[in-house]
């Protein structure tokens, strides 16, 4: 039952009808369209939604709109209106106690605490932070507001909450351990670093001698510092091409698509103003690998427009001028429809098409054969919305468009990325200020060079044959290639695995198969912060030192073309070693010391040699950033034009033109599995990590699956109850939450769930882990080995 209220927000009074379950924040975002006031944690921990009500600061996420009736509401949009974007004003509004503490301690800090500037290492956003260090412990991470580097933390503050707690966590691994008893029995014996490294080296060299180096594999996660680069270097020097990295489902598909179409990857130009921002399967308020949140605020406040493509009504979807509620997995079809409209209504820049494209007529012909009604059926996006999206995008001068992970996790991600790149190019948004731009990297050692790929070319065909050529060129294999090589010993038998920055049991598709594969291995070594489902079945577990516990350089994400200093702020606990040291010392014992260093820290200077400075000197500079020249039409393709049709792709053996056959690919639901399951990054966590961190576990204590209330009714399901989600590949349980904004045919499950508190049960890896439900293919993206992970047919029933 709705209630009439009068809401006075920043001196503007509006009468409106609100539902009891609408928070004031819901109304501020959707009806008043505020961009500075954000939804972070939703439960009153983070302060991102802070407002003043009758002079008192409260969390608008915990205030019902009906209770705000007749009150005087002032938000950051007014209270910090004079500040250009995120600054001390907003920070003090969100964290009044910190402001008070700062006000009580004049420089130098009266309580003896130190302040050191650094960057967050939790997620690719790498916000600039000031670490507050007391008694050798990092106690807080404030936004660093002096340098002008991006400092507005994710709305939920996951780095600020997670990092200090992890550094002092009661369950941190402190010394090397080896398995005693059966694999997975949970019995461990403490060993020395010497014994650990000698054991690993002996095992690896034995396998190399008897079977070949390709039989030793590495499982690597997203780079934080140099550990990923060290591991790749080790793999190359050792002679193995069997290295799994996240590249198969993150960054590579769209990066390659841009490279083959436009000549190189692009990034959204946060430095200059755009008329329009498009967030396609991405939400910068919570995760950042592209457009900054500061940019969103800036553009919204300048009267710019926002379009969001997302099956969920995320907070930015609520703010958007146009929300495209897309069918999960149908981005290829939708992109084709948008391009068709741009072409047939002649919305593109005619001069660009005439002078700067190759093969334009071919895509015109390809898309002339389809109808927008077909696109609507495949994508669930009404024809008028496809048209509105296309017209709005083409009219903007310029538009910045960010496509996220979701668009990279489909079997046709590469071709979909090609269409998106073409759309960017022909609408004149490439390499213009405010648009999607090329970067000129500053001088530092290229990661590829650090990996020694030229010195010791990898025998990639040994493990990949002639498949997945982009994987071959980007130094990775997809995870399903690893599991097949282990289980079927095809094309080579893999016998050992070293895991760094990763939890394969939880994050590789088809967990049951991954588990079976790992259990079959002769030897598993894992470097970790905590025990996980993957360490649980390892032979040797090594305690890793983390960011801020050693000197580190961060160069990832690669498409930002920057390098950052992450200085050591405190000693690591126990006997923890940074991964770079683990790998460096292991390399020596493998007889590969010539390609490594006496001390892993020497690599820091080596990375910076091209810049003509030492790491110590670089620490003062903190970062080297790329430059943007905005040279018009600087396409580094063979033809020097936007290659709609790519001969180079044809030579490699892939379709030179995106085809409708490929773009329209959709996973089909059926009577047995009638719903479509997707997922998104869970705001409180970094992927599968940190479920044992209290400050974020209280924000999201359980794995939740969301569904439309009518569908839940139809299936006889009760909100809050554990329900069973099943696909062809497996069955899990998550707790049901009803969401009116979802399409009734869609189910949004939580990714990355396991239970640190269930040590006796393999940490509950089977219970709620979405990868119990995902397939390991085939079907594969022929260029990268990708699988469709968003939009998986499922059914949901009572537990």
């Amino acid at each position, binding site marked *: *039952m709705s*209630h009439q209220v009068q809401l006075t927000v920043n001196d503007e009074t509006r009468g409106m009808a609100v539902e*009891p*379950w*609408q*928070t004031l924040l*819901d109304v501020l975002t959707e009806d008043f369209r505020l961009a500075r006031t954000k*939804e972070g944690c*939703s*439960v*009153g*921990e983070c*302060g991102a939604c*802070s407002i003043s009500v009758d002079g*008192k*600061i*409260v*969390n608008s996420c*915990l*205030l*019902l709109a*009906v*209770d705000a009736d007749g009150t005087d509401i002032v938000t950051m949009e007014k209270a910090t209106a004079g500040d250009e974007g995120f600054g001390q004003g907003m920070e003090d509004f969100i964290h*009044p*106690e910190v402001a008070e503490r700062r006000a009580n301690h004049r420089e130098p800090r009266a309580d003896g605490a130190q302040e050191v500037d650094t960057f967050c290492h939790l997620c690719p956003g790498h916000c600039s932070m000031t670490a507050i260090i007391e008694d050798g412990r990092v106690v807080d991470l404030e936004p660093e507001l002096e340098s002008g580097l991006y400092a507005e933390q994710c709305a939920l503050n996951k780095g600020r909450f997670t990092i200090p*707690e992890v550094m002092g966590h*009661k369950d941190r691994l402190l010394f090397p351990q080896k398995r005693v008893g059966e694999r997975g029995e949970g019995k461990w014996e403490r060993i020395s670093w010497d014994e650990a490294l000698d054991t690993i080296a002996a095992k690896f060299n034995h396998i190399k001698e008897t079977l070949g180096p390709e039989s030793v594999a590495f499982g690597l996660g997203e780079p934080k510092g140099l550990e990923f680069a060290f591991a790749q270097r080790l793999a190359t020097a050792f002679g193995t091409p069997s290295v799994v990295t996240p590249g198969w489902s993150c960054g590579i598909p769209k990066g390659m698509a841009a490279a083959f179409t436009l000549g190189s990857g692009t990034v959204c130009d946060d430095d200059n103003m755009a008329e329009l921002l498009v967030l396609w399967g991405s939400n910068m308020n919570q995760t950042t690998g592209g457009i900054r949140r500061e940019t969103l605020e800036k553009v919204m406040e300048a009267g710019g427009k926002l379009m969001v493509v997302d099956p*969920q009504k*995320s*907070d930015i979807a609520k703010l958007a001028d146009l929300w495209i509620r897309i069918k999960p997995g149908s981005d290829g079809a939708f992109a084709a429809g948008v391009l068709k409209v741009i072409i047939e209504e002649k919305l593109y820049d005619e001069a660009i098409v005439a002078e700067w494209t190759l093969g334009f007529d071919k895509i015109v012909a390809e898309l002339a054969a389809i109808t927008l009604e077909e696109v609507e059926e495949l994508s669930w996006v009404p024809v008028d919305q496809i048209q509105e999206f296309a017209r709005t995008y083409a009219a903007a001068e310029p538009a910045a468009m960010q496509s996220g992970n979701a668009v990279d996790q489909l079997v046709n991600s590469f071709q979909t990325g090609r269409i998106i790149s073409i759309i960017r190019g022909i609408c004149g948004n490439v390499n213009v200020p405010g648009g999607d731009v090329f970067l000129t990297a500053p001088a530092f050692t290229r990661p590829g060079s650090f990996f020694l790929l030229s010195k010791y070319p990898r025998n990639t065909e040994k493990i990949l044959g002639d498949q997945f050529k982009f994987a071959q060129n980007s130094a990775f294999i997809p995870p399903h290639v690893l599991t097949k090589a282990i289980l079927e010993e095809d094309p080579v038998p893999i016998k050992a695995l070293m895991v760094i920055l990763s939890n394969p049991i939880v994050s590789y598709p088809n967990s049951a198969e991954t588990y079976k594969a790992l259990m079959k291995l002769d030897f598993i070594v894992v470097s970790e912060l905590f025990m996980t489902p993957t360490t649980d079945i390892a032979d040797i577990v090594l305690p890793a030192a983390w960011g801020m516990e050693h000197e580190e350089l961060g160069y990832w994400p690669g498409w930002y073309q920057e390098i950052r200093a992450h200085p050591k702020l405190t000693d690591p606990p126990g006997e923890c070693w940074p991964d770079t040291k683990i790998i460096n010392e292991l390399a020596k014992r493998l007889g590969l010391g010539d390609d490594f260093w006496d001390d892993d820290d020497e690599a820091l200077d080596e990375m910076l040699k091209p810049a003509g400075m030492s790491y110590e000197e670089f620490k003062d500079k903190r970062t080297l950033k790329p430059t943007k020249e905005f040279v018009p039409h600087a396409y580094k393709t063979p033809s020097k034009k936007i290659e709609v049709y790519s001969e180079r792709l044809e030579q490699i053996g892939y379709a030179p033109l995106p085809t409708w056959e490929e773009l329209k690919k959709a996973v089909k639901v059926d009577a047995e599995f009638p719903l479509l399951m997707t997922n*998104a990054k*869970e*705001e409180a966590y970094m992927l599968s990590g940190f479920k*044992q961190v*209290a*400050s974020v*576990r209280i924000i*999201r*204590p*359980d794995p*939740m699956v*969301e569904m439309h*209330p009518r569908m839940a009714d139809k299936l006889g399901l009760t*909100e*809050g109850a554990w329900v069973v989600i099943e696909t062809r590949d497996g069955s899990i349980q998550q*707790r*049901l*939450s*009803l*969401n009116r904004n979802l399409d009734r045919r869609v189910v*949004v499950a*939580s990714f990355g769930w396991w239970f640190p*508190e269930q040590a006796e049960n393999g940490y509950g890896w089977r219970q709620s882990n979405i990868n119990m439900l995902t397939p390991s293919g085939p079907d594969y993206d022929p260029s990268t080995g990708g699988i469709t992970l968003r939009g998986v047919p499922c059914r949901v029933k009572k537990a």
Partner: protein
Amino acid sequence: MLLGLPDFDILFPASVGDAIAMLEEHGEDAKLFAGGSDLLIAMKHKKKLPRFLINIKRIPDLHGIETAPDGTLVIGALATSADIAASGVAAISSGLAEAAQVLGTTQIRNIGTIGGNLGNASPSAEFAPPLLCLEASLTCVGPDGARIIPLDQFFLGPGETSLGPAEVITEIRVPPQAEPIHDTYIKHSLRRMDVAMASAAILLAMDGGKVMRVRIALGAVAPVPFRAKKAEAVLAGQTISEELIGLAAGAATSETTPIDDIRGYAGYRRDVVRDMVASGLRQVLKAAEENEKASV
């Protein structure tokens, strides 16, 4: 996936009587709704799914903080932590003022009520330890009228109280203290804004060098906040020495039944209790001694 609220209807009682009638009518389907800083979170986590929220915030006369003519401190159930921190309660009890200042964040203190904090009955309820030391009681009104529930009979288990299904807490009553008291509240948590991993309130009334009255209450280390009576017995009537402080701290620890949870292990919590009781006693003793000197 941001957390939305489930479906519900909201009711606005104009009086305590209205609220009681609504509780009787809807039973398990309804919950009292004050600040919402516990209830709305439980609803967003889909742990509590009431069909009706009975919004008691507009009922008059439940927000005041006053000292009655007989010296009883009467705090309306809807007084927020911020209200209590800003009032003059520090003159009556430092512990109560400290609890009001350290609960949650500034934002939470502006909406969270003392009635809600106690009614939610978390083992770590911030206001419970100092109020147990002050031997406070709650005025509760239900279909059969008003009754007084001493706080030490109020908590039955985590989230469970002796409130009847249609009863509403209207006041917290702190009896006048016959002698000058000195008290403190200490909270141990990962971050200041977190719920306590272990908490302690210590209260002393001294006569010369001897303990006339001692109250020690502990939070977050048992199913309910409770008075550590064995520890109190160690000190009652005694002259406090370091040795006695150690014995009392040890006794207090032995009365706890902490659990392992995501915030800390049981053993660690016991160690924290020992340290907190010892340092709390020293702190309060010092305050008492300084007060004696000042009044001489």
